[in-house]
C-alpha cells in the first residue's frame, strides 16, 4: 500500500500574511472542520496565521497532484504535490522547484495586486479631493472617476514598476524553462525505467 504524503508550504504563506498585514487588513479564515478531521499529513496544520490558504487535504490514496481554486489575492491556483514512495532525486528536484516557483509567484502577484488596488484607491481619493468631492455620494455609493482620469493612474503605475516587471519576466521565463526541462527529463526517465522493467520481466523466469 503506497503511503502518500502531502505537504503544503505553510512558511511562505505565513510570510505573505505578515506582508499583507503590513499593507492592509485582510479577512482571516479559519481552518474548516473538515480539513482538521481529515488531517493526516505529516505537516501540522497551523491555525491563525496561515489560515489564509485553504487547508485542503487530498485523499490518501490519490496518486496525482491536486490543483485548487484561484487564491483570492494572487489569483494563482495553488497545487499540492504528490510525493510518491520511491521518489527519485530528479523528481524531488522538480517538485521542490515547482513548489518554490509557486510560492515566489504567489508572493509577487499578491504584492502586485494589493499595491495596485491600494494605489488606485489613493489616487481616486486624491483626485476626488482636488475636485472637492466626498468619497461617497448621497446614496452611499463610492464615487468613481471616468476612464480618462483613471488612465493617468494606469500609465503611472506601469512606468513606476517597469524595472520590477522586467526582472520578474526574466525570472519567470527562466524558471518556466527549467521546470519544463526537468519535467521532460523526469518523463523520459520514467519511460526508460518502465521499458527496462518490462525487458527485465521478459528476461526473467516465465514460471513466476
Amino acid at each position, binding site marked *: 500500500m503506497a503511503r502518500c504524503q502531502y505537504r503544503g508550504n505553510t512558511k511562505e504563506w505565513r510570510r505573505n500574511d505578515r506582508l499583507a498585514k503590513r499593507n492592509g487588513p485582510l479577512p482571516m479564515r479559519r481552518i474548516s472542520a473538515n480539513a482538521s478531521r481529515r488531517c493526516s499529513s505529516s505537516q501540522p496544520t497551523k491555525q491563525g496565521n496561515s489560515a489564509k490558504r485553504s487547508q485542503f487535504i*487530498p485523499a490518501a490514496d490519490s496518486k496525482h497532484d491536486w490543483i*485548487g481554486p484561484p487564491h483570492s489575492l494572487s489569483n494563482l491556483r495553488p497545487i499540492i504535490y504528490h510525493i510518491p514512495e520511491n521518489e527519485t532525486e530528479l523528481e524531488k528536484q522538480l517538485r521542490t522547484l515547482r513548489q518554490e516557483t509557486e510560492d515566489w509567484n504567489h508572493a509577487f502577484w499578491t504584492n502586485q495586486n494589493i499595491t495596485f488596488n491600494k494605489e488606485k484607491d489613493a489616487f481616486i481619493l486624491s483626485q476626488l479631493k482636488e475636485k472637492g468631492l466626498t468619497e461617497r455620494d448621497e446614496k452611499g455609493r463610492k464615487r468613481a472617476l471616468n476612464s480618462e482620469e483613471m488612465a493617468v493612474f494606469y500609465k503611472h503605475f506601469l512606468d513606476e514598476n517597469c524595472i520590477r516587471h522586467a526582472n520578474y519576466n526574466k525570472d519567470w521565463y527562466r524558471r518556466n524553462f527549467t521546470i519544463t526541462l526537468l519535467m521532460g527529463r523526469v518523463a523520459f526517465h520514467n519511460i526508460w525505467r518502465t521499458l527496462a522493467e518490462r525487458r527485465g520481466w521478459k528476461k526473467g523466469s516465465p514460471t513466476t
Partner: protein
Amino acid sequence: MYKSTCSVLTGLVGVSVNQKLLGRNAIRNHQSARSLIQMPRRDPSQWMTFQHLNFLKRQYVMRSNNALYQRAKPKQTAILTVLEDNRDDSQIQQVPTIDHVPMVTDVTPPPPQPETTTTNVTATPVSSPVSTVAAQEILAVLKPTSSKTVSPPQTKAVSSAAGSGTEMLEVPHVQVESDEAREARLERQWKELKVDLAELPDVYAKLAKIKLTALVVWTAAAGFAMAPVPFDPATFFLASLGTGLASCTANSINQYFEVPFDSNMNRTKNRPLVRGQISPLHAVGFALACGVPGITMLTLAVNPLTGALGALNIFLYTCCYTPLKRLSIINTWVGAVVGAIPPIMGWTAATGALDPGALLLGGFLYCWQFPHFNALSWNLREDYSRGGYRMMSVTHPGMCKRVALRHSLGLIGLSVLGPVLDVTTWTFPLVSLPINLYISYLAFRFYQKGDRSSARKLFFCSLWHLPMLLLLALTCKKSRTDKEGVAKTLSLAPAPLPLAMQN
C-alpha cells in the same frame, strides 16, 4: 408566446395555470392540458434549468433541493474581484439585491415536495403559495432568513462589483456567506491534476485558440485564392492545413509562457494551463506535435519559402511579440507583422514567389490590425496595467487613437493599390469604399471621443470588416488568361489584360 413557454416549462406554475385553463374551457385546452398533465409527472430530477428573457432582465429558474426558485438577476458589469474571492465561473450563482426585484408577489419558497402537488393536477387545486402567484412573473425573493432554512451550503454572496474606473457600483450585499460555507465551497473546487481524455479535444481547442486559428487560415486561404495562378486544390489544402498547424503551435507556446499573467486577467483566466487541465510539458508537446509536421508540410509539400515564412511567424509571435508585450509598446507593430504574414504565406504557396500582390494583402492585414487591437485594448486598460502589460492604450492613449485612425484611412489607400498592382480590378476600390469609410468613421469617432462605447463599436466593426474586405477582393480579382486561353477566374468586370500579366 411567453405565457405558453412559462406554463409548459415551469412545472409548479404550469400546474396552477393549467388549473385555471381547465376550469374555464376544458374542450379547447384539452390537447394542451394533456401535455401539461404529462409534463409534471416526469421525475423532477429531469427538470432542466433554463432561462428566458423578460424584456429588461433575465430570470433563471434554478433547482435547489427539489424546489424551484425563479430569481431575477441584474445584468453584471465587468467585475474585478481582486480582493474578493475569485470564483470558478461554473459555480457562479448570484443573489439579487432586493432593490432590483420589481415585483414581489410571494416571499415564501415553493413547497419542498413538488411531486405530491403535481400528481394532484386534475383533482385538487395546488397548495396556496403557488396558486397565489401570478403566471407571468414569479419571483421568489431570497430573504436571508428563508434561504438559510432551505440550503445553507448553497447560498452565495454577491461579490462586490468593484469594477473598472467607470462603473464602480457597490452592489449591496443581501447576505454574506458564512466562513464554513465558503471553506466548503472552496474545498469542493480542488481538482485532481490528471488528464481527462474526454476533455482533451476541448482543451486542445482552447490551447490552440481555435477561433483565432480559423481566422488566420481564412486569411491565408484568401491569399492563396488571390494569387494569379491556376487554382490547385491539393496545394491549397496543404497550405491551409500547414498554416493552421503553425498557428496552433504559436498560440500554445504563447499560453505556455503567459500562465501567471493569464491568471490575473479576466479575459484569460479560464485557459487550460491556468486551470491546470494539462501540464506545461503537455502543452509544449502539443505545440511541437503541431509545429513540426506543420512546418515540414509547408516546406516539403508546398514550397520552402512558405515553410520559412511559417517558421518565421512562429518565432516572431512566440519569441518577439510575447515577451515584448511586457517590455515595450512596439509589441503592437510586431503583432501587426505577425498578422500580415499568413496571407503572404497563402500567396507564396500558390506562386512560390514574394510578389507585390502578396505584400499588398499583407499590407491589408497590417493596417487592419491597428483599429482592431487598439480598440480591443482600450477597454482592458485596467487589466493590462495591473498585469504589467505595456500597451499603447495604457501608456500613450493619444497615440493609440491616432494610430488606429491613421491605419483605418490607410486601408482606403491600399484598396486603390489593388488595381494598380494588377491584383484586382478597378471595381474593388469602389465596392470596398463603403466599408472602409465606415471603419474610418468609427475610428474617427474613437479618436474624438475615446470612450468605451466607441472603442467597442470599432472593435466589433473590425471583426466583420476584414472577412468582408477579403471577400470583396476575391470577387474583384483580376481575371487571368494565358496564351492558351485557359480558365478565367471569377471577376465582376473583366478588364483587358496587359500582355505582361500572362504567366
